[in-house]
């Protein structure tokens, strides 16, 4: 069984969790388990971690992109 970690700055509503789970069950092969974590450093949005692959939809990630492009 695979474990996907879902990071967000605040606890997610049940409705959002269902949306996320529906999306990722299709993407990932086999049985999946979702673990939700609250991590203030993401600032906003969510980040889904599947082993070494990170689906980054967070504000922190976007700020990092902005920082890179202004270097």
């Amino acid at each position, binding site marked *: 069984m695979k474990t996907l970690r879902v990071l967000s700055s605040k606890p997610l509503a049940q409705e959002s969790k269902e949306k996320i789970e529906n999306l990722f069950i299709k993407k990932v092969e086999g049985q999946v388990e979702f673990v939700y974590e609250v991590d203030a450093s993401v600032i906003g949005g969510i980040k889904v971690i599947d082993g070494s692959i990170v689906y980054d939809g967070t504000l922190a990630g976007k700020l990092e992109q902005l920082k890179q492009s*202004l270097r």
Partner: protein
Amino acid sequence: MAIDIKNIADLLKKQVSDVKLENQVVDVGEVIFSGDGIIKVKGLKNVKYYEVLAIENGASAIALNLEEEEVGAVVLDDDGSIAQGMQVKTTGKLMSVPVGNALLGRIVDPLGNPLDGKGSIDTDKYREIEVPSASIMDRSPVSQPLQTGLISIDSMIPIGRGQRELIIGDRQTGKTAIAIDTIINQKDKNVICVYVAIGQKSSTVNEVAHKLEAYGALDYSIIVSATAKDSAPLQYIAPYSGCSMAEEFMYNGKDVLIVYDDLSKHAVAYRTLSLLLKRPAGREAYPGDIFYLHSRLLERSVKLCDALGGGSITALPIVETQAGDISAYIPTNVISITDGQIYLETELFNAGTRPAVNVGLSVSRVGGSAQIKAMRSVAGTLRLDLAQYRELAVFTQFGSDLDNVTKAVLTHGEKLTELLKQPQYRPIPVAKQVVMLYVISLPSLLAISKKHVNKYFDEFLKYVEENNPAVYSDIDSTRLLSDENKQWLAQAAESFTKSFLEKI
């Protein structure tokens, strides 16, 4: 001048609003080994060959070894601060370098960073350094000469645009000199030159840059330099970077000349990398794919068909031999990949025959069709004449009783040998080469001894320029040496010889 704050603010706003912020899928791995410019990374399942990796400390690396559980990558800007456990991310970008006109006249490292203190390189065009070569259908046969300005080469080992001609010889035999003279000879000929220095001393590279500048050749050239002090990864990517810079011009319809100085040192850099990456080693401890590496690089030198603009890349790769041994691994490889070789010899060099080209062992497999007709007509028997001369010269060392025919072959051969000697940085235009080769065989030249040959031609070429410059311009425009001009040259040589002999 007052700083316009509003302007700066607007500029920043625009820059910020131009940035596309996207949800990203990144592959994140972890450094499990770091040392000697190499990292091994756990994870990164979806990484691509040649993808740029971003390391947590701000350094970047290129993924080269893609294995089941780990990825081997070479670090480009290692400041020694990479540690085990650091995060490594894929960037989705393949290794690229800046390209375009902004690079002309510049000295850059293999990443395209300026090394000449002339400020930043202003271009927004980039090109990946590892790209497939043009397909067979996109190519056209080599048919135009690329003049080196060296009479021994242009007459007997002619190089065409889009050709790959190896310069091979022991150390200090004038390999670099041939390449530099060829670059200098491209002045006002609409050819862009890229000189890639791999694993050389930085003083040698500086010397090259100074010479190019002094002869007005830097303006149309790019120098890509990874010196012996640079890391093996930088030395390894240097020729690919240079080639991509050349390709940008070729795909815009330009003719380009690229020099790889040299591929022996490139092979050594790759061997170092491969040993660090723990790849299996083959002959002379080089990894098995070194052949493939060099052939893929040289395959990128082509003549494009007209539909693609007709541009070309002519490559002069240089290989250093040990004690003249061309059967070592790297020399045989590159000989088999290229369209011919210019073979330089220490003995000739030391005997004062410079350029020290061994004509017997040098060939150009496609260049003949790229020679202008005038040159073909005067140089047709040159190889044979010289071969005969060399044979007889060995044979007659022991005896002194020579018949007249033998004597004639010997004296003519000696004079030809003198004629083919040429100092550095003095390229001769093809029209003048044609005149020299035509005139040397005229009967009136029998009176000129070999020690006066060079002086004779220095003055004779000037004499033609002053009295009948149309001889040169005719050759340039019609590519032929007309009967009329031949006649004029024969008469001119006769009277010129008389006055020359009176003076000396």
